[in-house]
């Protein structure tokens, strides 16, 4: 049970695809102009990631090693087409905003990366958990970036006015440069938090050793 939890949680922080591994950057930067767009893109990516990881894990013994990458791509492309069509039929406006980046989930490195590094070797249940963790990691990452950029750029969060309408908003944050700035600063902040966590852990470890020595002495 413990290992299942670890497999699930690693995608949410330690191996966070967007902020730690920096893969799948294109949709991350392009669609996070608003919180809702980031959330939608995250969920679409999660759907494709979970379905294709499970499918690849189920078929791992059938697929010959030499042609595995094309096989994975076809599986992924099939699920992307499903996501594309469902979004186009049910949420036409959202589909229009996300536009090109829905079909581009096919070439999102996260999906092929998990397929190659994880789903092609592990049992179905673990692949499912791993994909779900990674997918939710992407979803919170994209939503967070969307919230920050929408708040700074338009003074709203999920379309609700937060700052008074008279406040000057920094439009640059919903334009392309803002995407790079926000992500750069978030990556830096996350590193800083991890340094602090590691330091505290080390201090606690050394602290317990000295206490132990004191007891023995």
């Amino acid at each position, binding site marked *: 049970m413990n290992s299942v939890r670890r497999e699930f949680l690693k995608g949410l922080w330690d191996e966070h695809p967007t902020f730690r591994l920096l893969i799948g950057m294109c949709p991350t930067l392009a669609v996070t102009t608003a919180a809702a767009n980031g959330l939608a893109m995250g969920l679409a990516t999660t759907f494709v990631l979970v379905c294709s990881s499970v499918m690849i894990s189920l078929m791992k013994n059938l697929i010959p090693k030499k042609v595995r990458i094309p096989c994975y791509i076809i599986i992924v492309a099939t699920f992307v087409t499903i996501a594309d069509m469902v979004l186009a039929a049910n949420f036409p406006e959202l589909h229009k905003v996300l536009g090109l980046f829905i079909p581009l989930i096919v070439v999102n490195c996260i999906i092929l990366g998990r397929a190659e590094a994880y789903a092609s070797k592990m049992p179905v249940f673990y692949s499912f958990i791993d994909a779900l963790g990674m997918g939710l990691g992407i979803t919170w990452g994209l939503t967070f970036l969307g919230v920050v950029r929408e708040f700074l750029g338009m003074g709203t969060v999920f379309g609700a006015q937060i700052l008074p309408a008279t406040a000057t908003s920094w439009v640059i944050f919903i334009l*392309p440069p803002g995407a790079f700035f926000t992500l750069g600063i978030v990556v830096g902040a996350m590193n800083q938090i991890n340094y602090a966590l590691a330091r505290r852990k080390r201090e606690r470890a050394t602290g317990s050793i000295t206490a132990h020595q004191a007891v023995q002495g």
Partner: protein
Amino acid sequence: MGELALIFIGSVLVNNFVLVRFLGICPFLGVSKELDTALGMGMATTFVLVLSGAATWLVQTYILTPFGMPFLQNVAFILIIASLVQLVEMFLQKTSPGLYRALGIFLPLITTNCAVLGLAILVSQKGYTLIQTIVFALGTGVGFTLALAMMAGIREQLQFADIPKALQGAGIALITAGLMSMAFMGFSGLIAM
């Protein structure tokens, strides 16, 4: 002719794939540490972009549209790109080993470069002709190479700068890209797209 020039300039500067459209960010951050490799990657990508742009245009126009199979677009395009990259790799290995050694390691990476698939889909959305597609692909490749080379030049200098530890590597690269993207916004009034 004028229209083709507009497409070219538009795709190099105004709608630069990397800095304005956010396509091909992975190689932009991953392969931009040295100028030489950045140029190699840019050239290999341009080459594949032009070939795959033309190939996907032909398949879209003569196979997918007449037979009413636009839903197969994603699957068909990615397969064309993947096999084309493989083919180019084998062809180069046989015919010009020098070029193969220079571009070799980058070629497999290009399959998963979203600029390549993005270009194919954009072209089918815009309804370009074959000539327009080739010019657009060439402009996109040049724009990609330009962004990559500029980034590599800046990052070579950054090695000597005193950067806070948390921002070293990816953080500072992203902020640099933001400043470059801001500079490229200045081109947006150049032509009306």
